[in-house]
């Protein structure tokens, strides 16, 4: 009996250590979920705990004005996303409104129907990604660099204190093509935007990826899409478009694990018509 009592005493002494181990385990799980190394659904019951600790996710949908160039439909995307995730806050923004401070409040930023980007906006997006943000990139978003009168004034003002700044700025703009500095982060180069094309088949390449879970290969309606070339060393190709008449293959769904996650879709998800694919992509990028 004395031996049993001693064992119980020793066990009681271990309780604080066990509590510390449990706390460290929860912190570790929280960090790996936060940086999207694991999805909360991969650990049983963890989603509920994580979402209680982290709060509901917020998503920003950034687009240009309705008449601006670019493929995608911000309102359509937002509607689809709201149907699937009624408890996720999904905020629409005009591209002209974005700043680094605005983006950092959001777990996911969706870029759609927004072809023309300024250098300052591109830098804000790059900084957001460097800090661990996640982006869903649709079609030709941010694939053409432009300058605005405000940017010109800013560059000229900077030029006063930093001589040569304006010339450097113009030089950088002139030599930037496609996704420009964001292309290095994204790992793809913009080729062109195809007008409405028929005979395309959406087929998965990485069959066991969570984003295509339960989605089988299917024929697309005639659709606009963006042709890009990817850097295979930096990216995972999840799905591709097969032009059945020519047998030509185009990247359709690409993923890059940067600090956070970057998912690029050549066809805006709201145009594809597979609700399962849209839901999977959102669930993959947004935990709560």
């Amino acid at each position: 009996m004395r031996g049993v009592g001693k064992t119980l005493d020793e066990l009681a002494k271990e309780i604080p250590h066990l509590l510390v181990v449990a706390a460290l385990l929860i912190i570790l799980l929280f960090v790996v979920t936060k940086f999207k190394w694991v999805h909360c659904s991969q650990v049983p019951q963890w989603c509920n705990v994580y979402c209680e600790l982290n709060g509901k996710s917020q998503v920003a949908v950034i687009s240009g004005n309705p008449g601006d160039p670019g493929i995608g439909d911000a309102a359509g995307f937002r509607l689809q996303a709201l149907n699937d995730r009624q408890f996720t806050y999904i905020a629409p923004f005009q591209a002209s409104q974005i700043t680094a401070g605005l983006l950092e409040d959001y777990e996911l930023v969706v870029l759609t129907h927004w072809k023309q980007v300024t250098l300052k906006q591109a830098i804000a997006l790059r900084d957001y990604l460097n800090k661990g943000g996640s982006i869903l990139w649709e079609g030709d978003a941010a694939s053409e660099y432009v300058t605005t009168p405000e940017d010109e004034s800013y560059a000229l003002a900077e030029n006063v204190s930093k001589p040569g700044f304006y010339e450097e700025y113009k030089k950088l703009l002139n030599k930037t093509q496609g996704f420009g500095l964001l292309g290095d982060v994204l790992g793809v180069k913009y080729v062109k935007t195809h007008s409405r094309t028929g005979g395309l088949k959406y087929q998965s390449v990485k069959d066991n990826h969570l984003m295509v879970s339960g989605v089988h290969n299917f024929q697309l309606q005639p659709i606009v899409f963006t042709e890009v070339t990817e850097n295979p060393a930096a990216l995972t190709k999840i799905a591709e478009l097969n032009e059945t008449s020519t047998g030509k293959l185009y990247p359709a769904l690409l993923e890059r694990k940067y600090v956070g996650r970057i998912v690029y879709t050549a066809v805006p998800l709201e145009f594809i018509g597979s609700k399962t694919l849209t839901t999977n992509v959102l669930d993959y990028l947004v935990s709560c």
Partner: protein
Amino acid sequence: MKRGQYSGAAPGGKFGESAIPLILIAILAIFLAGRFGIVDFSGVPVLNSIFPSPKITVGVVGRSSYDMRALLESEDYRVTGVYFAGDIDQKVIYPGVLNNFDVIILQGESTCDRTARKVIADRVKAGGKLIVVGDACTRVSDDRAAYGWDIGIGSLGDVVPVVGGGVTKELEMLQTNAVRGKFKVVAVNHPVFNGVKNFGFDSEITAITVPKPNAEILAYIDASSIGKVTAPSLFAIVESKGLFSGKTIYFAFDPATVAAQGTGRNMFLNTLLYLRGAKG
């Protein structure tokens, strides 16, 4: 000697005093084990009056077959503690709806939308027990390109131990056909097959593609000449294995129809009893 100290002449008194908390803890542990069905005391004299045979509440998501309904409502099932709560439309499944069911059966409805899939999967991950029959819950109503149990992230695919619709991403629908052959038990020592021998099989069966790596094949149907090991065969019963506290058993055929033919009645009752106490 101070007051309250024991004398060396009465060691039994000290032992008795030290043992009291341990005895109380043991009684409490037994009570909790019986109360939560961890240990079945229904066969132990005296204790069976405190802990009667636990009830197994069964609900069918979809539409139960005529034979399934008859089987679950039959006298011998009721005496064993099986209580059939009825059919539940997948449209009314929201978080919490399935909490009162010990065993959930998916049958007779191939469409299950995402909310239902997620809720069923969460219930199993939290310790619930699931039986999937045939091609139940393999579709969603709003997407023709989506097929199988794997639709969605963290959903039904996490808990169903088989893959349906081909190993590639080309859409291959599950085929359900009438098959005549022999039901053969693989896991002969499994509690589901207590007292069950191989029997002749003549019913419809769904040809699933392949069990998942974390699955165990319990039985198959030898679909051609009886007794030939190289003959074509179909997976019949597959069980999930894993760290989850819940459990899923997949039936490629309707066990109630087979029971109505005079075979397999005990096998399905064993399955329900096994699931009542099953752990990952």
